[in-house]
């Protein structure tokens, strides 16, 4: 899966908006300046309190180099922690006009202690500004909030929304309840009012439920796929609970969960909605229409049919205006903009997927 990185040149014509870049802490102590003393001590003494059996590591170990590109390790610290290397290796080399930071760990989304989660959320949002966005104008931050405390989350969204550096709201699609549930609606209310899309990136940490409807997978190969299944469940929940009837301007970005499943899910939802529609009379339209209007999909890790043309069918069925290119830098399953598509895109399609759709969604120039 590691794509050999071509040495990019300044003359490279393709410019991109990368909708999935992962920054990292050099050490967890990087967060200390942004935490009050009480939570700094808590973090040092107890650490994060998650819903899993292992402390400080994932229960499904990643494949290559803890899931990182082996060429992305800086001299010190993990891949993604060194802005200069990120510039050299990715932003400059691959013609990145804008890069969306996708900070996942230590943002409080999976933390059980909600007070600590709120402190982490504030700290990670400050850290994104100070360490990344202020130093590198191509990068944009996400408002990372703990979805399990929606009252705090709404406050934090409103607080950050004054700053255009924050372009979206990041919560976990692997929440403690399906994301359509009303307990999360204050988050959608704030996001809609502040005109920020909700970004849902696949998550390695459980919200308290097994990763499948029949228990836990054995291998990382399965766990990896379970995130894709979970995205489908999340879409189903948000649509059927009527989130988009209540928040008609809400936009949702699905990140790293694939997209080839989306048309089939739409057909399936429509089929069974039609049969069972008296159960959800608050839906005014077929479910697939809410998907078409409210959801955006990032491309990495792109599905690879044996016949590449098949993916073109899928992209047309989803709508070319809803797909946004992403690399997942510096993770091992990075998609390279030069060879991500195994078929010819028209210039218009290329402009939409690599740049235009993201610029329109996030209001970038």
């Amino acid at each position, binding site marked *: 899966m590691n794509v050999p990185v071509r040495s990019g040149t300044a003359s490279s014509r393709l410019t991109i908006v990368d909708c999935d870049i992962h920054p990292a802490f050099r050490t967890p102590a990087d967060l200390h300046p942004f935490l009050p003393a009480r939570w700094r001590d808590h973090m040092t003494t107890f650490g994060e309190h998650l819903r899993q059996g292992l402390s400080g590591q994932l229960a499904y170990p990643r494949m290559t180099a803890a899931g990182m590109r082996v060429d992305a390790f800086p001299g010190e610290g993990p891949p993604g922690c060194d802005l200069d290397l990120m510039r050299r290796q990715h932003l400059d080399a691959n013609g990145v006009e804008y890069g969306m930071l996708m900070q996942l760990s230590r943002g409080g989304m999976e933390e059980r202690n909600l007070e600590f989660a709120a402190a982490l959320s504030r700290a990670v949002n400050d850290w994104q500004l100070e360490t990344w966005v202020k130093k590198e104008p191509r990068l944009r931050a996400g408002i990372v909030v703990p979805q399990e405390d929606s009252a705090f989350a709404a406050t934090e969204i409103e607080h950050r929304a004054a700053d255009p550096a924050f372009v979206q709201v990041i919560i976990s699609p692997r929440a403690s309840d399906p994301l359509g549930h009303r307990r999360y609606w204050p988050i959608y209310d704030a996001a809609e009012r502040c005109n920020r899309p909700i970004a849902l990136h696949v998550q390695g940490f459980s919200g308290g439920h097994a990763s499948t409807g029949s228990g836990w997978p054995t291998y990382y190969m399965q766990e990896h796929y379970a995130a894709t299944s979970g995205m489908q*469940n999340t879409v189903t929940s948000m649509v059927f609970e009527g989130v988009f009837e209540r928040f008609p301007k809400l936009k949702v970005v699905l990140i790293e969960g694939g997209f080839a499943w989306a048309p089939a899910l739409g057909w399936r939802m429509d089929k069974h909605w039609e049969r069972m529609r008296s159960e959800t009379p608050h839906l005014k339209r077929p479910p697939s229409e809410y998907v078409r209007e409210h959801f955006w999909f990032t491309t990495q890790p792109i599905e690879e049919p044996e016949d590449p043309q098949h993916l073109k069918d899928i992209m047309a069925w989803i709508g070319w205006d809803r797909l946004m290119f992403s690399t997942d830098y510096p993770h091992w399953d990075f998609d390279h903009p030069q060879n991500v598509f195994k078929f010819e895109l028209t210039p218009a399609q290329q402009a939409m997927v690599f740049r235009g759709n993201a610029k329109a969604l996030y209001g970038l120039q």
Partner: protein
Amino acid sequence: MKVPHKGAIDCDLHPALPNASALLPHLSEYWRDQLVNRHIDRYSFVLTNYPPNSPLTARPDWRRAPGMPGDDLELIRRQALEPFGIRFAICNVLHGAIALFNEDMAAALCAAVNDWVVKELIDREPRLRASLLVPAHNPQLAVAEIERLAPDRRFVQVLLFAMGEMLLGRRLYWPIYAAAEKHGLTIGVHAGGTYHHAPTSSGWPAHRVEDYIAQSTVFESQLLSFLAEGVFQKFPKLKLVLIESGFSWLPALMWRTSKTWRGVRSEVPWIDRPPAEIIRDHVRLTLQPVDAPKFDPHVLSRTLEHIGTDRMLLFSTDYPHWQFDGEDVLPDGFPDDAVRKLLIDNALETYPRLRDGAVVGDNARDKEAIR
């Protein structure tokens, strides 16, 4: 469209027990006492996906009052066998015994259901075949039930459910697959199940329709489990049939899994060729519910092309569940040469016992015709 040939094989038909008291004649004295004294015989053992009055549970014109949809053999003949020219129909009795935590009670009730199926269905109607209901949460008891009834070759499949205690590929369940392979039985996994875990990785959806939609994602997980654990390498003759959760989700799964495998193959070194190839060889899916757009046959035919073979889909009516209207059980968009495979050939290839059963069935039908 209607079924164009006689002789179709319906791989998902749901006869129902009138109620649990129908099992009493098939239970030991101990279990009869248990059921009667604890009033368990008064329950209907309906699985949670199918509340009796839900639109999904029975087509309006297939309902009758009083009674459970599917509990009348004469109606099954008139509504499910004759209109579609059925040669064989595989009965999948969706009985709630499988969702009991008490393994012994589950085993006793499963066995009673199977005996009821013999007496009330397959002894009385030669076109009917059946799946064996087993308590999968205790593989030892499940194997004992398979061994008990495997000599009756009208049982063609072992019936498991998509939502159980653990993912079905795990080695704990392998004795079931060893027994099935030995006896030429197919493993059928049906939508629904115990709901002992939340249906999704983020918990419990609010609506029944969401539960039902989620079944295709549970099937994704089960399919990955069989694949990743190496079940098909260990049991190379085994066929896995995914029942009642559509098929249009399959191409995306094959594409992603074949790609991911290239990166993770060192974790699962027994997977020695692209997963899509293994899936095409070992996995089958029943037709209904067709989860493709109703009014766009082009999309369906493209989806079939994405699947990449016309050997994987097995005809089903899902009777009496309401998945289609009238006799239009086949969606538009199937190429002509795929229709015969869908209706007949694929099932004969999938179910070894239908091949020898073909002779038995014809003879039985001939005999009945003579009578």
